């Protein structure tokens, strides 16, 4: 059914409702029609802005920071939200709003950096395997198969528990888990386009393989890569939360949504505000990222064009 509709649209210019026919533009327009994805996108932008500017603004206005413990002993206790502390304070008297917003910085950064690592490794690896094909491809993808079936969570827990924990190690560990799927997706896409005429033309011009891969192939497979990267961010953030819950993630006094949520979960019966705001921030962000990822996937899917 859908293929018939598509043929009609391509044959009859009157039938197509938009002016530009660039696939990026079409995808963008389809994305804008998806209300949940748009709302999710706006929410993510809001979260990023809030966690970047929030701690600065709060510090300028009130002097509270994520690790500010009041010198007045009577203030070192958990207080419910009031006019001074919009999200209350934790049991050390630290302002929760500053902590939640600062935690957002770290959580979002972990998600983005680890995704970036997986993006760089995965795209390079997959593109090289797919472009050269044959024996190279066979060996490289077999290696991915082997790595794929290693029990990663176990190795990551061992790595983080036994070595000195640092943010860098966390980034590397999380990025190293998630590049494998990316490499597979990229390789599949490269295989699909590498025999098209424009690649042949580039080769006929005598361009080096690296230029062909990074200037001609990679820009043409960005669609699926962006979709998968968007869905990797929430996965990584969830992994970070999981590791923080086990005490393996971000270390005190730094905070992240994972740390705050794990901490709040233990005290939620007595001091519920410790949990509510951190979890709301974490879950809303994960929800939005998933919604945007799904929306992007639908938007880039040619079967939804009709």
């Amino acid at each position, binding site marked *: 059914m859908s293929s018939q509709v598509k043929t009609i649209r391509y044959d009859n210019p009157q039938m197509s409702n938009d002016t530009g026919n660039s696939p990026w533009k079409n995808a963008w327009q389809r994305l804008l029609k998806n209300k949940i994805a748009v709302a999710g996108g706006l929410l993510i932008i809001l979260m990023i802005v809030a966690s970047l500017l929030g701690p600065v603004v709060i510090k300028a206005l009130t002097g509270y920071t994520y690790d500010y413990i009041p010198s007045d002993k009577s203030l070192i206790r958990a207080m419910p939200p009031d006019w001074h502390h919009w999200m209350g304070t934790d049991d050390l008297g630290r302002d929760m709003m500053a902590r939640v917003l600062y935690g957002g910085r770290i959580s979002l950064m972990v998600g983005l950096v680890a995704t970036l690592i997986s993006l760089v490794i995965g795209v390079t690896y997959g593109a090289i395997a797919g472009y050269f094909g044959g024996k190279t491809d066979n060996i490289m993808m077999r290696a991915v198969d082997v790595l794929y*079936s290693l029990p990663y969570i176990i190795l990551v827990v061992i790595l983080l528990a*036994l070595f000195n924990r640092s943010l860098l190690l966390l980034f590397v560990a999380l990025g190293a888990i998630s590049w494998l799927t990316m490499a597979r997706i990229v390789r599949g896409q490269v295989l699909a386009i590498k025999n098209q005429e424009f690649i042949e033309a580039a080769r006929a011009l005598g361009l080096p393989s690296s230029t062909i891969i990074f200037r001609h192939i990679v820009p043409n497979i960005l669609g699926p890569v962006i979709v998968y990267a968007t869905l990797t961010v929430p996965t990584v953030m969830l992994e970070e939360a*999981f590791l923080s819950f086990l005490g393996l993630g971000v270390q005190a006094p730094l905070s992240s949504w*994972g740390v705050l*949520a794990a901490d709040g979960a*233990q005290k939620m019966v007595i001091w519920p505000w410790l949990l509510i705001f951190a979890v709301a921030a974490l879950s809303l962000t994960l*929800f939005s990222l998933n919604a945007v990822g*799904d929306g992007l996937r639908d938007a880039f899917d040619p079967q939804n064009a009709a």
Partner: protein
Amino acid sequence: MIRFIFRRLAVMGPMVLLVLTISFFLVRLAPGNPFTREGRQLPDSVLKNLNEKYGLDEPLYKQYANWIGRVLHFDFGPSIKYPDRNVNEIIGESITVSASIGIFAYFIALLVGLSGGVLAGYKKNSWADYLSSTVSVLGVSVPNFILGPLLVLVFSLTLYWLPPARIEWLAIAGPIDLHWLIVIFSVVVIAIYIALVYLGLGGVLLRIVSPLTHGNKKISYAILGSTGLAGLFVIVFLLRPYLHWQGVSFPLSIKIPSLRSIILPAVTLSAVYIAYIMRLTRSGMVETLGRDYIRTARAKGLSERRVIFVHALRGAVLPVVSFTGPALAGLIGGTVVVEKIFAIPGLGSYFINAAFNRDYFLLLGITAFVSTLLMLMNLLVDITYAIIDPRIRFER
């Protein structure tokens, strides 16, 4: 098919060795040791004796060789933190709880996920569809260490229906020796073998046997079944002296947790899988329902129930089967969290405690055990997949 299985088995051996090697060097090259903890400095002579006792004073390559050699005999060595028990005993004790929670969780996930996904895919864009997509996005957005305490708050601390933590034991029997483990294992393998014979592998085997039985299927199955049984008994008797050789046993305590006390942990653990399975089933269902063969099935006048559950579900369930592999891996990570929340003395909590205490042999033993188990399960999943979808077998 048989070639496929053997090819996969041949890859598995080196992979297990690779995991063992990586984890061994990761653990042993990490700074620190199990004896000096913060605030407790042992005198050098004591430290030297302790290192000698556990063989930690030897050069690293020798320790590695010793350890690998022992593991190949199913002997995971002593535990440093729990000197009264060895690693085999700890694994044997804790695996039953973890396994029962994990299996229960995956069962819940399959039941809810499949039925929700089928309904959502069949009635696309109905309220059921929206409900299921909300549930599946919520499932991946709420971490399980939040969901667990929330469930406790509602069902134990407010409604007083279920216990908030700890396991109630229904029965404690054992420890059972490894021979019983082998018997249990054999029964499972026989069940799988029979299932294989009936599902598809039988095609090849039947062709071999059929000249003897003049094509009588019942007699052929009987012959195949009894050869399978005989083969297994041979394996068991071949393995017995080998396992008894060093007096090593794998004492498996049969501790049966009460259903009441594992409901909350299992539900907590299953949430993520419900989400994934529902989503996969829904999209698979939408895709297959648009296929021509579904129209044919309807045109033949089959009942709607038959069309959905026999024709469409078989196609829609494929991605769910291939998700089982990653799900098993995730289940292990999830178990660690859930066992911590509900204070359950399972494999996961021993693992994480061993990692913090640098209890080398316990940590490595659990890693080796779980990784091998995981790879075996993955193999089973792949075989199932190859049976359901014949295209897989002929790849490469």
